[in-house]
């Protein structure tokens, strides 16, 4: 289709053609086209088929108001044709179509709508119950608006996010929004302006009507230029807002231009105050077959002609309820559309200037008339106009039916903002009755139609927003209030709920996305879902991608009419976010993979480490594909291994009251902590559960160094502060977890390896088990050396500045080469320590067991009551209790299928506990287990049964209760 001659309102460049494919054929659009405008220009009228009835659906709005125009683009379904810019080579396909959009196989379903009443999905095909899966599968296969292709593109368009900060955020780039932004910027604060369309200007953008001698579109350009020139206003176009939230957080997504950094990305703007100027849209007129291709709001046809140079039809009939339809009729007639008639649901209240212009243009004007039914199937061929009072009717031929029932405000941002909304009986729209703090509203959504009044309201809102953000704008606000007062106020609205004479069985659609008809509203009400919020869910009105746009106010008005509710008591439905649907990938965000790596990450990776997530860290779990880690374990037991234990929590605590704090949080008597000695102890919570364990070393007067488990490192400072919060003690804590890396050199040859890289005296006498020394290693690296034994062997824990850890690792590996040193990972460590019977918090402890229950009661200084140790009262209370879970060792009989971690321990049919950790030990030659079982079954020598059911095949294995220290119970190897 040839485009209309160039005009100042056009947003296309016809000199730059863009070729694309549609439904297997070639087509051409031009630069500036959206997919919708290009398809329409190419003669496409049926864009898709509807959800339930497979009715033909065409272009409705140009802002993504409904799923009518969702198309698949390059295999990606559910792209909004109206808001997606045309790109060269696009392959576009209609959705929900079996056959072709014009001839759809399932189109016959439209004749069986009686089988699909409101809520049918909840009520039909459910009995007998066994049949429901059959129907469910078929219903789901037939419904839907697009096919996801799992094998398709893995493109992640939302790879970026953007966080903005501003004093004032303005939602809406129409005249009110622009005036608000300009006014707010006068205070010097940062202003962000968000507009869903590609261009600023709002409803002025395509209008040529002269106001004060200037075409309105030129006024829009002028305002946009002023906004662009203002250094403290940032403009984001093609940036739909998905919601405005508490504390004035504006969220949305920015659609990037061709060749941009992404297809679209999520943004958030935190503003001190916000102005909502999201404007109005035409309220759909509910009449029979109002969904036929060719039925659309007046502004859609108007914008097609004015902005895209596309003649929307040859012969149009208007059935409106607002002056914008009159203006559109005059404009479209100017573009060459034959306007057969302009019906207006309002009997009076029209703009006399426009009425006169309609007359001058020779257009038939029918006040008090509206559309009753559309004719045609795949495209509209005519209309039956009816008088509002239900009197006469008249048939007119047309290929374009431009219908609305007046305007409705776009209240979405106000709804998410939790503004209180009420129906205004003057404007016929929902409007805010109470706004949250520092939120303001402006423009046509207040019912204003006069452009000067709209701008004045925008300026006032902008100034008030800037003042709320801290600018002293009292005098300016006073002047702006006067300007608003002197400007024309809100115009009278249209109160038509639906066309007169509409039958209860009429296919008059309230919601296009879900095929929700007037009949369905009636059915919902009859079945007790008689308020909009209930009917919305039962009938699915407004639950589609278009959300509120199409059914929004109409649902409330029709239900009120059915119930006889006065208009002033009208209540709407809550508009849910996202107000405009972004891609799921956009919401998913950039796939952040920020995690912690130890200073030895690369060194271990070079040796084949297999890393796993462990909290925020990536840690080496295995060093071979043998997940039993046999070689790693064997090497530590027989020789020497090295473990990267850097995530271990490491802290300094100092100050005059540091020891008091230690006494409070640790269960042991921490006054016995000595220089050069590690004191092992544990922390409990108030219920006596083990929370943490580690060693404490006195490194100076009132100065201590202590370690915690890796998992608790992040919570330790708060833990101390919380449990000493009432004492006013003076002590300081420094988290050194990342400052110091840590290597655990373990095995019978550990001393020999360490001796090769330090001059320190490592003899057993000089540096005994549980000793602490500050030594120098290699070429002068200071190391805190702790002789511990978590894995049950002679071990040295070396804590060194993280930047030196790579060097230290290299030294150790070089020094240990002659002994066959090799690294071991977390899995091997877990096996080694379990053989020794050392617990891991959260693996062999849980909230039902106290420190005493897991055999660590020896740590608790039960005589100390003065320190008010955390957990002591609970430990005292639980110490005399019976029927508690206890940690025991199990020697598990050989079985075809070995029990696994988490298997339950039973006594007949009674569950008496569970296996915390179990492994087949090469060192021991049998399978051991650490289990929490009831104390009745805990005595050594007893037998228990272990029930396994890993893949639905149950088995029972027997185990004998033994002491939980399977390996070197005397600790001779640790002290060697």
């Amino acid at each position, binding site marked *: 289709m040839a485009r209309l001659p160039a005009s100042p309102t056009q947003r296309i460049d016809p000199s730059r053609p863009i070729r694309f494919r549609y439904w297997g054929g070639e087509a051409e659009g031009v630069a500036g086209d959206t997919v919708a405008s290009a398809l329409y220009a190419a003669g496409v009228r049926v864009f898709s088929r509807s959800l339930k009835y497979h009715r033909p659906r065409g272009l409705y709005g140009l802002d993504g108001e409904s799923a009518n125009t969702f198309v698949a683009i390059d295999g990606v379904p559910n792209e909004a044709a109206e808001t997606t810019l045309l790109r060269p080579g696009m392959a576009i396909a209609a959705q929900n179509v079996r056959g072709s959009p014009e001839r759809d196989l399932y189109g016959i379903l439209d004749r069986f709508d009686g089988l699909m009443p409101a809520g049918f999905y909840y009520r039909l095909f459910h009995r007998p119950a066994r049949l429901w899966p059959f129907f469910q599968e078929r219903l789901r296969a037939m419904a839907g608006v697009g096919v996801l292709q799992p094998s398709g593109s893995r493109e992640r368009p939302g790879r970026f996010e953007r966080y903005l900060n501003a004093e004032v955020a303005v939602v809406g780039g129409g005249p009110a929004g622009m005036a608000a932004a300009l006014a707010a910027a006068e205070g010097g604060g*940062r202003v962000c302006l968000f507009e869903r369309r590609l261009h600023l200007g709002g409803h002025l953008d395509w209008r040529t009507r002269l106001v004060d001698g200037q075409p309105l579109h030129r006024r829009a350009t002028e305002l946009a230029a002023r906004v662009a020139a203002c250094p403290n206003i940032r403009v984001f176009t093609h940036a739909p807002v998905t919601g405005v939230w508490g504390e004035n957080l504006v969220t949305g997504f920015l659609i990037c231009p061709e060749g941009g*950094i992404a297809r679209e990305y999520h943004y958030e703007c*935190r503003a001190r105050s916000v102005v909502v100027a999201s404007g109005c849209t035409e309220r759909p007129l509910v009449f029979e077959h109002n969904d036929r291709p060719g039925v659309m709001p007046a502004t859609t046809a108007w914008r097609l002609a004015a902005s895209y140079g596309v003649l929307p039809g040859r012969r149009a009939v208007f059935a409106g309820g607002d002056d914008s339809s009159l203006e559109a009729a005059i404009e479209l007639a100017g573009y060459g559309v034959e306007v057969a008639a302009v019906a207006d649901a309002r009997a009076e209240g029209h703009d006399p200037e426009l009425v006169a212009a309609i007359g001058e243009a020779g257009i038939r004007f029918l006040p008090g008339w509206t559309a009753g039914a559309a004719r045609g199937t795949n495209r509209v061929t005519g209309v039956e106009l009816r008088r509002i009072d239900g009197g006469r009717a008249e048939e007119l031929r047309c290929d374009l039916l431009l219908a609305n029932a007046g305007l409705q405000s776009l209240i979405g941002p106000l709804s998410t903002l939790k503004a209180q909304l009420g129906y205004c009986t003057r404007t016929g729209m929902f409007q805010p009755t109470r706004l949250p703090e520092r939120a303001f509203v402006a423009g046509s959504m207040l019912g204003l139609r006069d452009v000067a009044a709209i701008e004045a309201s925008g300026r006032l809102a902008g100034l008030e927003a800037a003042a709320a953000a801290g600018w002293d704008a009292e005098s300016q606000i006073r002047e702006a209030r006067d300007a608003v007062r002197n400007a024309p106020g809100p115009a009278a609205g249209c109160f038509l709920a639906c066309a007169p004479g509409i039958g209860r069985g009429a296919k008059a659609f309230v919601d296009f996305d879900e095929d929700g008809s007037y009949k369905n509203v009636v059915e919902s009400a009859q079945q007790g879902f008689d308020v909009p919020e209930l009917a919305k869910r039962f009938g699915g009105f407004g639950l589609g991608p278009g959300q509120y746009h199409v059914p929004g106010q109409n649902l409330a008005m029709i239900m009120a009419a059915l119930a006889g509710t006065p208009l002033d008591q009208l209540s709407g439905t809550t508009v849910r976010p996202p107000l405009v649907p972004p891609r799921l990938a956009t919401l998913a965000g950039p796939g952040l993979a*920020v995690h912690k790596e130890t200073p030895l990450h690369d060194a271990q990776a070079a040796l084949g480490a297999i890393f796993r997530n462990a909290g925020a860290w990536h840690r080496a779990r295995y060093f071979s594909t043998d997940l039993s880690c046999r070689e790693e374990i064997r090497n530590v037991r027989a020789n020497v291994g090295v473990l990267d234990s850097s995530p271990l929590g490491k802290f300094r605590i100092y*100050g005059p009251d540091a020891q008091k704090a230690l006494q409070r949080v640790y269960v042991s008597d921490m006054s016995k902590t000595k220089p050069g000695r590690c004191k092992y102890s544990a922390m409990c919570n108030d219920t006596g559960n083990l929370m943490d364990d580690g060693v404490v070393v006195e490194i100076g007067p009132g100065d201590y160094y202590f370690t915690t488990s890796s998992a608790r490192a992040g919570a330790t400072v708060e833990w101390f502060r919380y449990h000493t919060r009432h004492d006013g003690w003076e002590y300081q804590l420094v988290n050194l*977890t990342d*400052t110091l890396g840590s290597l655990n050199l373990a095995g019978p040859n550990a001393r020999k390896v360490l001796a090769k890289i330090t*001059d320190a005296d490592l003899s057993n006498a000089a540096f005994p088990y549980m000793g602490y020394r500050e030594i120098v290693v290699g070429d002068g690296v200071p190391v805190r050396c702790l002789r511990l034994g978590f894995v049950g062997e002679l071990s040295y824990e070396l804590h060194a*500045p993280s930047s*030196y850890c790579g060097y230290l690792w290299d030294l150790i590996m070089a020094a240990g080469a002659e002994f066959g040193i090799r690294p071991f990972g977390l899995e091997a460590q877990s096996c080694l320590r379990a053989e020794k019977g050392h617990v891991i918090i959260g693996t062999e402890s849980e909230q039902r067991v106290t420190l005493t229950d897991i055999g660590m009661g020896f740590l608790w200084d039960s005589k100390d009551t003065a320190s008010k140790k955390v957990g002591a009262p609970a430990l005292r209370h639980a110490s005399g209790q019976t029927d508690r879970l206890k940690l025991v060792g199990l020697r598990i009989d050989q079985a075809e299928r070995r029990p696994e971690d988490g298997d339950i321990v039973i006594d007949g049919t009674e569950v008496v506990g569970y296996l915390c950790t179990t492994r087949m030990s090469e060192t021991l030659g049998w399978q051991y287990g650490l289990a929490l079982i009831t104390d009745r079954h805990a005595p050594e020598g007893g037998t228990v049964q272990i029930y396994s059911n890993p893949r639905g095949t149950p088995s029972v294995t027997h185990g004998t209760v033994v002491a939980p220290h399977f390996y070197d119970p005397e600790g001779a190897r640790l002290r060697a």
Partner: protein
Amino acid sequence: MTATATARIRRSPVRFDATALERTSRDGWDIVRRYSDEGGGPWLVDLSHRCRWDLQHPDVGNQRPFGVPVPSKPGEVAISDGFAVNRMNRTQASLWHLGGNDRPATPSGVGFTETTDGHCMLAFLGPETASVFEHLSDLDVFDPERGLPRLVQGPVLHVPCQVVALGSNAVILTLSRGYGRTFAEAALQFARPCGLRPAGEARFDEWFVRWASTRSSDPSLPSR
């Protein structure tokens, strides 16, 4: 002791996928002074080797580490003689050595703990730095009302950070060292639209000298 053949090198947690043009060794650190193709900015500079300390004291506001008075209010930053003193809370301040190549000794006094190895320290410099930051964090580090330089503590790329905005074209931040590499990679990736590229330490030195001289000659700037 017999095995000391391995070279004693301190390693930064950050490694850029870029070609180093000029390197230097300082206090054991292997430092890249310049990378090839650094572009015209914005830049990301690894300053993890710069010394840092934690200072805690009940009366921290009256301390003068390195001769620099600790600011009186949390969030305030004092910069003098190459040191930045960032007041964190009622009793704590962080100290950063930003200028000069010498290695300052840890001040005497029990309240000082060297934390150089505990953090990764990165500088975002050059044009579009503010835009870069918008891709990484919702922190309002350039809030004009609060003035610069100032300290903001909060998440950047969801990682807890101390962020000091020195001007609209310079932000320095520290974060736990363990996050260093993946954080820097993510920052470069997410700020790609702004053209963020790795740069060597020299880029920061040049900028800092210029910035410091501008401050000392501008009486309208906050007192140091």
